[in-house]
């Protein structure tokens, strides 16, 4: 005869911490990228004012919340969706799927295709947010890694890439 046991799930603290730091920095980088890059700015122009987007991992987070204020400014709103008005949610099913995505083993497009994340909100705004996310990854990551993370690596000039990268790293690090 077999034996019955109850299994209480353990927390994956290290993976959660990695995702927290990654999403925190990327959130701040998105805010800066909207100021320094025309393409990212244009994508945010297509999103209405007073509109918040969240990319979150189920069930315990972390999350990345970015929003546009009433006067059209892009803001990073923190790592939690609690008590926030969210207009568009991109939800990753679990922490392992989030690790696949944020350790660049799979691009955002592949993750969507494999049903690792789902969407609650308008598709055109989600597509615009994914394009913003891809552009920020191109700025933040070296080409060899960024190629894995985005659908198509853009043909940007070296000056655009380097100046944007320096500005984003500096300003996101300092937080201005």
């Amino acid at each position, binding site marked *: *005869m*077999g*034996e*019955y*046991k*109850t*299994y*209480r*799930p*353990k*927390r*994956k603290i290290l*993976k*959660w911490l990695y995702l927290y730091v990654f999403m925190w920095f990327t959130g701040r980088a998105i805010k800066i990228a909207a100021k320094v890059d025309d393409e990212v700015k244009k994508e945010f122009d297509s999103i209405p004012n007073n509109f918040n987007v969240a990319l979150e991992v*189920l*069930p*315990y987070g972390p999350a990345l919340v970015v929003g546009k204020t009433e006067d059209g400014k892009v803001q990073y709103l923190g790592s939690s969706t609690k008590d926030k008005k969210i207009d568009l949610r991109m939800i990753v*099913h*679990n*922490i*392992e*799927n989030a690790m*696949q995505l944020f350790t660049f083993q799979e691009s955002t497009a592949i993750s969507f295709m*494999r*049903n690792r994340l789902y969407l609650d909100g308008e598709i055109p705004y989600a597509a615009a947010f994914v394009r913003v996310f891809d552009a920020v990854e191109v700025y933040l990551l070296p080409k060899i890694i960024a190629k894995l993370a985005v659908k198509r690596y853009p043909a940007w000039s070296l000056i655009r890439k380097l100046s944007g990268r320096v500005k984003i790293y500096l300003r996101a690090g300092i937080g201005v």
Partner: protein
Amino acid sequence: MSRTDYSDFLCPIKFCCGKLALETLPAELRVYNARKPLILFSNKAVINGLIDPVKQAFDDSEMVAGIYDGVPESPTLSTIRELSDIYIKNGHDALIAVGSGSVMNLAKVLNIVVSGEPGDLKTCQGEDKITKPLNPFFVVPEASATGLMANGSACIDNFSFTSRYLIPDYLAIDPRIVQQETVGVIIDAAMRALSSSSFAYTLPDTDYFIDPYAYLAIQTICENLIPVIENADSKKGFKDYLIMNDTEKGKMALVTASVIGGFISFCQPAGIVMRLSEALSEYCQLSSGILAGLLLPYGLEYAMLKEGYQTEKLLLALAGPDVYSRTPENERGKSAMGILRDIQDKLFHLTDGYIPRTLAGAGISENQFSEMIERMSQNDEGIDSKGCLSILNHAREGRPVSDI
């Protein structure tokens, strides 16, 4: 090609096959509003060390899972009683079966009991007696899984049940689960699926729905079986821990094909080859799947001559459109049988003779045939005794069936 004028089909399973398939279980359970699953492991699954990967898939989810390890090979009603007590007492609301064979059977019957009243077991016996959907039921098959877990039938002690509600809701095929099996077990499952799919695919009247599923199963087995057996003993390199290698992908493809084969055998009555191989397995050490693979070309040749099975069509699934289109129409059936015999021959060499090429090689004597067929016809009145004998005699000598 002649198509049937009537067809019905049901396949309500959601499949997930690939890397991190186990990690999808908590999210899929949430879809069914289930929060506390009971996970059943077969004895073999425990020995193969499958508890840890399944348990870890629930880490960082809010679900507390119950684990029952070591479902016996032949579960009885008392096992059902014990498990239903555990299920109800601990407030479980879904079932996950990990392994193959008996654990799947047991989980299906247990689901009838825990989704209604214990007395339901008597009233639900027979065909289509279950009148409402049961609790969520997920399966995680091993490489030895025959695919029968994907169908809507279950049997325990003398109780047998057939209903669409017994078909699992979700099926996760994960590389960590399918890696542990021996070559014999993989061949058994693949050949069983190849037999049921080949018979369904070559039916005199092509079925609209079965046809593409059978094609997929045959093609997948042909592409993957030999490479997987050839590389079964190869050691994992460093790169293989990061990216899934071809053997792992091949094993997963074979399990998927086995599941499709199992589903086809639920939709179609068992062909003559499956019935003969089940009976033959009692006379030798070999499993019915391996025997089905051995009998397949002979059974198909007989079915073509006697019942007009479209064996020429099989070449398309076995060898692909290029070979099919450059083979003359009247040669296609013969070529398809040649490929099936070729597979058998390669398996014979790769397994150092463990997979026989003829029934004589399997140690079955001619004298046993008549006794076996007599026993078969006692249980099954529709059996064609003369045909069975002809198939067995040809398979014994390895001689193609060219006349009846």
